[in-house]
């Protein structure tokens, strides 16, 4: 099954064995494609995963540590085909990741997202309140991960309103105007988890009933909250108490794999869509660990053809809680926080000779 065919499937509900059958073939084909098109990637795979591709298992596919996208611009297309470079904000002063998108990959990412989001939003585009400022999507050469996330979600909404000003102060009139006009019907509230946590409760303190019809979709950057002891359960409870929010759905995703969005299901756990999956690895041996054992999250995706980002070892810790349980079958997982340092040795050496392409 080709990646484009996988995108026509329902995003959730597939048994793990079925998913692995198309992920295995698709990922192997992507590895071959990127090895042929991106010399630096080919060197990395040759050095770190000798004999890769022979095995039929998804978990045996080569992976790249996510940090590589900070140090190298890895591209599998000619420069003239690049329509946009995504730049994600680096953690604590590090360089940002840079990911080149061609028209094909960008369109595939958008289509993947349009298959996934109706699972929580329905087919109707909802009035959309964005807990951020409009500058985050300002046109420019490089887009931040936050801006890219907002732009990616905007087609699912209409009558968009930005809740914050440039200095991140509340736009009281804009928020009240939005709620007065659209609060009587289902509407979408979207933002990054930390932004929502910081700005939504004070904004709603005086009018908690106004979010009765809201569905919040939020994700990205639990690091700051985990430091305060805030997990998803605490987040939901506090937002319900202080902002009157009844429905919140979190997602997990990253700029290096836009369009691969892992969505929270009714079980409160994150679920991989049909074209993506997670693998949890032991941070000492990099072996896959069993269900229930925490480790480093690897994300795989059938979407990227313009850069070798189809199999990425993240810098997040996570744990798979269940497999094939409940309506959304497949793996259900939880993100536990960041790993201190996840870059295997030899990485820079293998990629270095000859730059990105």
């Amino acid at each position: 099954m080709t990646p484009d065919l996988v995108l026509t499937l329902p995003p959730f509900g597939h048994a793990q064995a079925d998913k692995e059958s198309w992920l295995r073939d698709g990922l192997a084909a992507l590895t071959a494609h990127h090895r042929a098109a991106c010399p630096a990637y080919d060197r990395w795979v040759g050095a770190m995963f000798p004999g890769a591709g022979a095995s039929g298992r998804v978990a045996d596919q080569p992976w790249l540590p996510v940090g590589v996208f900070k140090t190298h611009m890895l591209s599998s297309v000619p420069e003239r085909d690049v329509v946009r470079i995504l730049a994600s904000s680096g953690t604590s002063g590090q360089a940002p990741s840079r990911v080149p998108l061609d028209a094909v990959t960008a369109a595939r990412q958008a289509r993947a997202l349009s298959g996934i989001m109706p699972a929580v939003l329905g087919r109707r585009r909802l009035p959309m309140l964005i807990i951020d400022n409009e500058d985050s999507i300002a046109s420019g050469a490089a887009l931040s991960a936050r801006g890219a996330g907002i732009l990616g979600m905007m087609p699912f909404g209409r009558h968009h309103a930005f809740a914050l000003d440039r200095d991140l102060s509340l736009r009281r009139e804009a928020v009240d105007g939005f709620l007065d006009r659209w609060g009587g019907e289902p509407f979408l509230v979207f933002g990054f988890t930390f932004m929502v946590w910081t700005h939504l409760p004070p904004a709603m303190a005086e009018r908690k009933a106004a979010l009765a019809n809201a569905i919040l979709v939020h994700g990205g950057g639990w690091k700051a909250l985990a430091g305060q002891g805030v997990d998803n359960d605490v987040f939901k409870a506090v937002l319900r108490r202080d902002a009157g929010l009844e429905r919140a759905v979190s997602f997990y995703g990253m700029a290096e794999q836009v369009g691969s969005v892992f969505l929270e299901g009714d079980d409160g756990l994150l679920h991989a869509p049909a074209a993506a999956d997670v693998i949890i690895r032991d941070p000492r041996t990099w072996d896959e660990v069993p269900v229930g054992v925490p480790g480093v999250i690897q994300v795989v995706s059938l979407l990227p053809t313009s850069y070798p980002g189809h199999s990425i070892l993240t810098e997040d810790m996570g744990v798979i809680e269940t497999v094939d349980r409940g309506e959304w079958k497949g793996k259900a997982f939880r993100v536990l926080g960041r790993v201190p340092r996840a870059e295997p040795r030899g990485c820079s050496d293998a990629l270095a000779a000859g730059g990105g392409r």
Partner: protein
Amino acid sequence: MSTLDTIRTLFRQSFDLEDGADVDDLAYRAIPGWDSVGHMRLIAALETEFDLMLETDDVLDMSSFAKAREILGKYGVAV
């Protein structure tokens, strides 16, 4: 003004083009103004002008002027 001219005007306004600029051959991302932000501006303008609500897939599929005409036709906008 004909419906077609109205659509042309909305394209120019959404992408900050001059009056009279030829938009019939425009495609998404072919000009700086038609980026993701300009795209949402265009969608909002079309929805307001013709009092309709496009489905998400149509929002994503509207990748050229010609495609916009086709999609609007589906919603009963005679062009």
